[in-house]
């Protein structure tokens, strides 16, 4: 399953990647093993707001689609 498919409120753990993920997301800590909570979606349904390592991060869905996750 990829990150963009998660509904608000769901949590998951990063297990791998599908395709080219912006390096920035990795530098901000979305490395394998990291747990992620989807906090909410923007009013127009995109981007999504994530909670990672204690901070809030806004990511577009088509970028989140590169992150493979597993339910925690």
């Amino acid at each position, binding site marked *: 399953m990829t990150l963009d498919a998660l509904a608000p409120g769901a949590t998951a753990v990063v297990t791998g*990647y599908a395709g080219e993920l912006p390096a920035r997301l990795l*530098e901000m800590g979305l490395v394998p093993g990291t747990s992620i909570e989807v906090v909410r979606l923007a*009013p127009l349904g995109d981007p999504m707001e994530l909670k990672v390592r204690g901070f809030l991060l806004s990511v577009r869905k088509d970028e989140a689609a590169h992150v493979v996750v597993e339910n925690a």
Partner: protein
Amino acid sequence: MTETQTRVRTVALAGNPNVGKTTLFNALTGSHQKVANYPGVTVERKSGRLAGVRAGGDGAPSTSAPGVEVVDLPGTYSLAPKSVDERVAFDALVGRIPGEPAPDVVVCVVDATNLERNLYLVTQVLDLGLPTVVALNMTDALDEAGIEIDVAGLAERLGVPVVETAARSGRGIDALREAVLDPPPPAQGVGWELMPAVQAAVAPLAEALGAESDVPPSQLHAEALGALTSDPLLAVWERRAPRFHQDVLDTRAALDARPVMYRMAEMTGRYGWISPVAADVVRQTAAAGQVTVSDKIDAVVTHRVWGPLIFGGVLLVIFQAVFSWAVPAMDAIEWLVGVTGQGMRAVLPDGVFEDVMVEGALTGVGNVLVFLPQILLLFLFLGIMEDTGYMARTAFIMDRAMRKVGLSGGSVVPMLSAYACAIPGIMAARTLADERERIITIMVVPLQGCSARLPVYVLFIAAFIPAGSLFGVIGYQGLAMTSLYVLGTLMAFAAAWVLRKWVFKGTGSSFVMELPPYRMPQPRYLWRRMVDRSKVFVVRAGKIIFGLSIVLWVLASYPKLDPPPALAAQMEAADQAAQDARQSLVDIDLSGRAELEGTERASIESALEAADAESLVAQNEWAGYQVRNSYIGRFGHALEPIMRPLGFDWKISAGIVASFAAREVIVSALATIYSAGADADEESLALRDAIKADTYPDGTKVFTPLVAVSLLVFFVFALQCMSTLAIAKRELNSWFWPAVMWGYMFVLAYGFSFAIYQGGKLLGLG
């Protein structure tokens, strides 16, 4: 303090965005650089002098720090820069800015409430091998976040001193200053592990780089790894170390073939070290998952329905308030200018100098200064948006819509900043990772209504839009103002769409943005920004407008001409009639014949009144004749054929040309022309009334509501600002795009004004 240390000359503040680097910088140097609560406030390298120990400190002479330069850098998440501002930070840290050696000491500023992610950059900075001090900032917010940090443990793991600070309240500043002046030895790095396959590939690359460049040995490994994993970092070496550049490309191909995921090796390696360390030194005291105040605010502000409504509401309230709240202050300034004018007339000797100062300088400057309250209010509101953290939320809300025109949420901050002034808007575009998006943003940002347009907007709206309100809440004038801003913004979107579609084709950038916690805005900083802005505005009024007003007044008053014969005769006749009437009144009084008092006296008095009125009419006509035939009058008339189709008379045409230096000049230009054209008895400096009263020789109004709308729209679109062009040139490194920018905006301005005026006339609105 040891004396063996080499002298510290430069200290650089590095760190993630929004961790309080600039707040620390201000505290260390006594500067007033801009601080706000969103990532990417600082986009330039700023330097200042380290201030000495505050009075009341221990006063040790060794800490008085003569001549230490502190450098504030833009925030960056890593040393692999993705945008112009991050590039500045990176170049400064590795000493790659021409004429600027690498700093003697790096202060790595860290947000204590968000330690784990911040440590990524810390470990990178430590790998640079410079003397480093970590400033653990925002320690005042730890309690609320329910976090405790083992500071000694952290310092031990990092191998460098860690100083606890709370930059906003000034806590820990002295300790930080001492740590910096007594710097630790060069950092050793934390000993994180790169995956073996990549490590094996980097070692020979580092060697190749060392042979071909002057990179210090301690940094070779970091530079080689950077070049291997990041394209922008590799590009640096294409010219400077071509063999190394080729080696990297070969290595990449070899790794890709195996395949080894070398691009993410650094991130997984560093976080592999960081995660256990963070788990060790950070202790969560509050139950995790507790709902914070920020969460509660966000639930409303970014809500599916409320979010956009609130955003629209906020903008509407700002423009409304700018209109209505500023009125008392405006009246006060207007009154002050009037009083000053009377005072000057009383003090200065009659003559040309008095006229220049009162009708030229004071009228020109006064009529612009009147708008200072409005501009300050606008800055206050934008400051509150920035300081609370709401600005970052607008980017989140708007990203999807911005994507439709080929931009991203990242360009929302530049565009909103441009409501204050295009220049910070253009600068803020530095945070955009996609170069094409950055150029597009710069190209369209000047269409956003800026505060220099406010004087023009307010003047004409106040003169031509009734003061009433819709449902008793939404004032028509505020609504008119909002629509001008909306018009500019919609056009900016349209222009961006066109540029993305036809010129800078591409899919657009990604949008990865941190959403900071909400914070109380700091009155001190809001106040500071308003004071700074007032200074800028007053200095501008004092220099540009003062000088231009005098020039304009002279151009509007000379050459001095004789009245044409018919007018001269008319004036003489009127004066003669008035004089005769006065004489008759005196005669009656002297004769003492009471029976004449009633009828005859009344008729003479009315004759006198008529004669005076006629004299005034002639005087005004004479003054008008004079100004029409002045230098500026002739110039304006020469332009009139071009501007006539937009509904502009010669005065507006001349004013528009003068305002290509700066928009607000049109206000002082009109004020000066009207004041030079008014006869000396008229004391009113209020331009609003002069505009409404002005007529063509045939008696029709110069400013109909249609003309006013056409003029306002012209000002929405036209790029009349030298500074914007200069900054755009600097940021884009060429005159080509600024020239295009000026051209397309002029075409829009002329085209829309033309369509509105001609269309309006066809509909019979003229």
